[in-house]
């Protein structure tokens, strides 16, 4: 597996990259802060693989958890409710506090 930049428990913010075409980072988490739950391993970059390239070197894919109240204004559930998804390392930057 490629070397990881973010450890479990790290606070991260999702970057708002101007990637066009196929990518696996939903818009609703961009700019939001979450916490790294774990790493799923390293995988070929789908943004390149979708267009015929091999997407290598493989990049770490993190499972990142967000508070629902940080994602949706007026979220109607519990404050403890959460959402998690898998994000490639180049979409993440360190975050502090909050």
């Amino acid at each position, binding site marked *: 597996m490629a070397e990881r930049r973010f450890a479990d428990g790290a606070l991260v913010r999702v970057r708002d990259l101007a990637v066009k075409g196929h990518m696996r980072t939903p818009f609703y988490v961009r700019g939001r802060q979450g916490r790294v739950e774990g790493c799923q391993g390293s995988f070929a970059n789908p943004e390149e693989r979708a267009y015929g390239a091999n997407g290598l070197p493989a990049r770490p894919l993190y499972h990142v958890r967000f508070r629902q109240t940080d994602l949706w204004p007026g979220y109607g559930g*519990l404050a403890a409710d959460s959402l998690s998804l898998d994000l490639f390392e180049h979409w993440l930057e360190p975050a502090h506090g909050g």
Partner: protein
Amino acid sequence: MAAEQGQDHGHDHPPRSDHPVRAWEKREAAIRSLLIEKGLLTADAIRAKIEEWEQKSPALGARIVARAWSDPAFEARLLADAIEAAGELGIEARGVKIVALKNTPRLHHLVVCTLCSCYPRALLGLPPAWYKAPAYRSRAVSEPRAVLAEFGTRLPPETEVRVVDSTADCRYLVLPVRPAGTEGWSEDRLAGLIGRDAMIGVAVVQAARA
């Protein structure tokens, strides 16, 4: 493109459907025709792959959940590596990484794929139509409790709902809570309770279904 020519040019087309042929259907037919004409694929290989996927069903996942309920050591192996654990039961699931998510009385997982229709097909078969529909994909993330209520699923008010969006290279299988009143049941009997929707997380398993 082949699909835009007439029907009479030496190979079969899919049956006429009850709606106008959409652009992506024309594209799929054109690509398929070219792959077959170039000898890269055969119609029989395509048919066999469709047959293989359509024969997989949620019964596979139900066997895995029933074993996990019956054997804590198996449950631990399932949570560590779902594909290896499936292999112990003779279920071939290698390919895309699959992660099992354990529900408890305090934590309920709900799986969605907002970007397309990623789904643990090797263990549940093909996804239901609603799983692929824009309404489920958008609302499951932003108002999961309302979606659960529409599926008839009532959780204890203090239970945390955790939505898991299958965005990339992992697929998710929910390990539901074993219902009360099933103590001493055989794995086969337990498996009969476990439906597809509970393994997606839009339902809970109920003993009354037996």
